[in-house]
């Protein structure tokens, strides 16, 4: 391990700086993203630049969600009447199902990453595909919740954006999260196509791990949103 690590370090500037990113047979793949093969850093260990970048983006994204949820908390805390007559309750059981769906897709995402690490192409593609499917189903579920499929949606039942703080905060927070799910589905589809083209062969898992970070973050935020938007308001005040 130590000798091959040294040779990879030496080879990285030679092969990583050029544009010829493909097709030279080395035991330890040094082609492609040279950042994947930097020597361990004193502060960040073996975390790649891309991973650190994604983490800091996720921090700023978390603050956006934090701002929205705090605004919701302030409005709700101040209101004397949160549920106006004629406005529907949010369906907890259906969204609990959506929560479960996102948790499932998080598991398939880590399994896709595990398969990429172990260079199991078929397994990686299967699990990436399942993750995308989970995200797409979540979006369908959210469409059903808003607009209704085979039954009235929340809008038809009288929860209209702009009519009350309850409606506006609900749609703002859940649709902002929905945009993240949509982004994640598109992002993962791009990753899936790149995997299909063989860009993550030989245990190159860095990009899959970074995409996974985004996807798990979407799941993490939904856990918070589900709790504070759906579960907490059902308590009798």
């Amino acid at each position, binding site marked *: 391990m130590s000798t091959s690590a040294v040779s*990879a370090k030496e080879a990285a500037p030679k092969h990583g700086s050029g544009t010829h990113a493909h097709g030279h047979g080395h035991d330890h*793949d040094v082609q492609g993203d040279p950042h*994947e*093969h930097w020597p361990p850093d004193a*502060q*960040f*260990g*073996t*975390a*790649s630049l891309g991973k*650190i970048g994604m*983490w*800091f983006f*996720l*921090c700023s994204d*978390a*603050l956006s*969600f*934090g*701002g929205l*949820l*705090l605004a919701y*908390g*302030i409005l709700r*805390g101040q209101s004397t009447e949160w549920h106006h007559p004629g406005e529907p309750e949010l369906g*907890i*059981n259906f969204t*609990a199902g959506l929560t*479960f769906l996102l*948790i*499932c897709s*998080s*598991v398939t*995402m*880590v*399994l896709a*990453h*595990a398969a990429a*690490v*172990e260079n199991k192409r078929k397994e990686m593609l299967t699990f990436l595909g399942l993750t995308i499917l989970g995200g797409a189903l979540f979006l369908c579920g959210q469409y059903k919740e808003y607009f209704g499929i085979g039954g009235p949606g929340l809008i038809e039942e009288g929860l209209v954006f702009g009519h009350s703080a309850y409606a506006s905060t609900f749609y703002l927070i859940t649709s902002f999260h929905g945009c993240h799910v949509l982004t994640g589905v598109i992002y993962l589809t791009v990753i899936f196509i790149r995997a299909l083209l063989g860009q993550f062969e030989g*245990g190159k*898992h*860095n990009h899959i*791990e970074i995409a*996974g*970070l985004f996807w*798990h973050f979407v*799941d*993490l935020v939904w*856990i*918070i949103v*589900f*709790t*504070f938007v759906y*579960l*907490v308001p*059902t*308590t*009798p*005040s």
Partner: protein
Amino acid sequence: MSKSHVNRKEYWAIFAVLFLLTVLEVGVVYLGIAKTPLFVALTGLALVKATCVGLFFMHLKHETPILRRSIAIPMSIPAFYALILIAEGAWRRLPW
């Protein structure tokens, strides 16, 4: 090659924990307990679930302490604001 940690058993264990906590969360709502303990229970359950996802699925468990802290500290700021908000709301509602 960066060190990678793959532990499928752990992933499935976390999946089971997340599933059970979600069932518990929904169950607790139907129990009909008082508002404050319910709020505390729901918040606690959500934070445990979010921490599980961060530590195990997002591999924070395996990152360096500096990277972990660089993430945990900004992420805790909204939680801190929320605490102030709740404290302020409670203070205003006291029967002065």
